[in-house]
């Protein structure tokens, strides 16, 4: 547990906004940019924006979650961090669990906060805004988990980031269907399904990512 806290502290120092790698605001800016550009593209008619805006923000959140992936695992692998951890008897699973938490914290909360100005830009009503917030809260951990798995899988490849998007998108389709579907239905089943899918992915991700790192080792 103490080891986990030490690892998480380092991951947060590197990944969080103001942290060492310093690209943490990119997903937030990307997300807001979509909200700003979308009315220009489809026209400012409020009813159209209100009907389609929530789904667009969901797609924006998915694409924004791809942005931090290029250095999420690859740079530590190149620098031999995982080897030094292994020599100290620290498993890749613990390291990847800490990385998953830090990765979500680096973009999830920011996107949730940005949902408020984005909803205003797309003239979403109050109910849709709360539904969007709930479904993003349920779905973004799943996006973080898929992101971690793909970036661990591609860590040993050069220029794997472009591939990361291609690999991530199909697995994320159920999250988008249920998460964005939650906006259109009156019950909460969509958010619950998205949340369940997120939980499963978060449970798998540390093991899958750890296995990917070990497989790339020798």
């Amino acid at each position: 547990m103490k080891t986990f806290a030490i690892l998480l502290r380092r991951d947060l120092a590197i990944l969080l906004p103001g942290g060492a790698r310093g690209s943490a605001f990119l997903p937030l800016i990307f997300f807001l940019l979509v909200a700003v550009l979308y009315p220009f593209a489809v026209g400012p008619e409020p009813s159209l924006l209100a009907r389609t805006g929530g789904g667009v923000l969901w797609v924006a959140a998915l694409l924004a979650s791809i942005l931090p992936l290029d250095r999420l695992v690859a740079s530590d692998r190149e620098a031999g961090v995982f080897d030094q951890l292994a020599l100290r008897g620290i498993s890749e699973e613990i390291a990847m669990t800490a990385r998953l938490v830090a990765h979500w914290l680096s973009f999830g909360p920011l996107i949730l906060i940005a949902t408020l100005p984005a909803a205003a830009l797309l003239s979403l009503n109050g109910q849709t805004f709360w539904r969007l917030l709930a479904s993003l809260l349920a779905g973004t951990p799943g996006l973080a988990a898929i992101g971690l798995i793909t970036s661990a899988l591609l860590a040993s490849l050069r220029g794997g980031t472009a591939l990361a998007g291609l690999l991530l998108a199909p697995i994320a389709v159920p999250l988008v269907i249920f998460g964005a579907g939650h906006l259109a239905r009156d019950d909460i089943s969509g958010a619950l399904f998205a949340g369940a899918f997120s939980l499963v992915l978060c449970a798998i991700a540390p093991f899958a990512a750890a296995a990917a790192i070990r497989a790339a080792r020798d």
Partner: protein
Amino acid sequence: MQARLSATDLACRKGDRLLFRQLDLDLGPGDMLHVRGPNGVGKTSLMRILAGLARPFAGTIERSDEVGMIDGRHALDPDRKLGDALRFWARLDGGVDISEPMRRLGIDTLTDIPVGYLSTGQKQRGVIARLLLRPRPIWLLDEAFAGLDTASQDLLADLVSEHCKAGGLCAFVSHQPVDLPARVLDLAEYA
């Protein structure tokens, strides 16, 4: 400490090439081994196999204790200050003080410099300081002398001989001649 590192009938395969085979090794307390051989003969692979980071194609390895390893990669966060980057490893090693190893390596003045701004040799000295954080009986040094100035090379040689006098053992890869009473293993003989 009763350090021991032994390998029996070791073989290593990379792709479809057998790099070395029938390698036997037995190192006890105080032993030094200088692994040599031309490029591509499998020195780094041997070190990684001995450290347990890679699986041998054949053969078995026994290690008595924890391994301290230096390889070609520094594993220090380039965007963080050297002090912070080392302190992370010190915390994992049980919250030890980093100032003494840093002073020993002559990098105590570099604490506040980001790792990315340091020269190769300065980074390498940071890596050696990490090795000293906690006593680890088995040292595996892969090209640890590379990139160091003469004074630092001598210092590392001193550290290795102190380590072995205290009952540790050390296997190192180096292309340069090293002034240590080490047994020489020419890996090319096992190809």
